[in-house]
């Protein structure tokens, strides 16, 4: 039986040596489409040291970012590839894990994101928004009878356009043209910006206004 142990040990060692030399045996998953042409492990993995940012930057250069879309131009300032990127997650696998906390303090949000407030609240988004979630905790829109919309909202360019008001006139009549563009509350509600007050509701509002006016 000792011979069996010797044969088994030799076979096990031989199998392990073969598996070690056969690089694909250690591959924890297929490479993504972006790297599928990479056929040698040592192009990214340095023996006993593994992958590093330097190895990524041998092929990926961000010295000229003018050809990149705004969303990924921050790579010019970031050289810590492995903090967000991971490979071997399959051909269709997601190799990026966007973590804003890693970029905190190093980049302006508006470098990548469009300011939907049109600069109304300044450029420091983090005064209100968090890093982990864009939602503002505890934020409540002003009540329904709030009429000072222009304190926060700018009149959109569409409402400055003559064509817009012509369309309004054609649909609702001439008197609607008298509405000031900054009087958002005349048509919009605070419940939902796209929830418009219809004509009969507007009449009701006007009647109520005239009654309450001394």
């Amino acid at each position, binding site marked *: *039986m000792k011979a*069996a*142990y010797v044969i*088994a*040990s030799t*076979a*096990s*060692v031989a*199998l*392990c040596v073969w*598996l*070690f030399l*056969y690089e*694909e*045996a*250690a*591959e*924890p*998953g297929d490479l993504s489409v972006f790297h599928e042409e990479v056929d040698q*492990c040592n192009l990214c*993995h*340095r*023996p*006993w*040291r*593994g*992958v590093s940012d330097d190895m990524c930057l041998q092929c990926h250069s961000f010295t000229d970012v003018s050809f990149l879309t705004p969303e990924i131009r921050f790579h010019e300032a970031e050289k810590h590839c*492995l903090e967000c990127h*991971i490979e*071997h*997650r399959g051909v269709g*696998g997601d190799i990026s*894990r966007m*973590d804003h906390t890693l970029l905190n303090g190093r980049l302006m949000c508006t470098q990548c994101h469009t300011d939907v407030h049109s600069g109304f609240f300044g450029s420091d988004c983090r005064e209100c928004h968090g890093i982990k979630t864009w939602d503002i905790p505890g934020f409540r829109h002003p009540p329904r009878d709030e009429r000072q919309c222009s304190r926060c909202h700018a009149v959109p360019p569409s409402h400055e356009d003559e064509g817009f008001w012509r369309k309004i006139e054609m649909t609702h009549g001439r008197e609607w043209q008298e509405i000031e563009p900054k009087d958002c509350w005349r048509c919009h509600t605070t419940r939902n910006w796209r929830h418009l007050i219809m004509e009969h509701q507007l009449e009701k509002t006007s009647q109520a206004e005239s009654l309450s006016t001394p």
Partner: protein
Amino acid sequence: MMTEKNINALLAVFFVLLAAGFLFHRSATFAGSPAGHLIGIAGAVLMFMTLIYPFKKRVLGRKGRKNPLGTHILYGLAGPSLVVIHSAHKLDSLIGLLTFLAMVIVVVSGIVGGYLFRSVNRTLKEQKKELETLKSAFQERKEEITACEALLLPDREKEETEAIDEEQRNRCARLYELARSISELEYATSFFDSTKSMFSKWMKVHHVLTLLLFSLVILHILTVLYYGLRWLP
């Protein structure tokens, strides 16, 4: 009460259920995460601790209570269970897959072999003990054999058998039953003996597979270090 035997039985069920979990669950990054690595290391340490038992048995010659098999089984079930958790059922690499399969086969061969081997061994011991008792009882009544020869052997004269009284006949019948019991028990013992030697071979297979498993575990650790240990988020 939770005895070591009960704990091991529960662990065996837990291990089988955990290993079968790959049918329903797979995590791509857990094995490489800090928690995954720690669980994997703990599992590997426990698996290597199973080697204490054969070392004490073969090298130090300690058997029985000085070297309980229960501890070996405990390490051999707890370690692989942690390794299954570490793998998170992601078996994409060939080395990982082979290591996982070898581990499952070794554990199952250990559970089945150990359980059956112990059962057979226990039965065999009991049978041999009983056989000894029967044989000594038979030896004590050896002098009666000659007297019963006339009844037991077919070539005796009719007058010779008729001369034997009733009491003697009963004694001879009991002696005959005793001899038959010994014969049946000897047959059963020889059957269990051959089963035991078959399970000894089974355990040899368990040992050979263990060799393969530990080679693969070492290879897995080496390749992880060679291609670079990375704590995945």
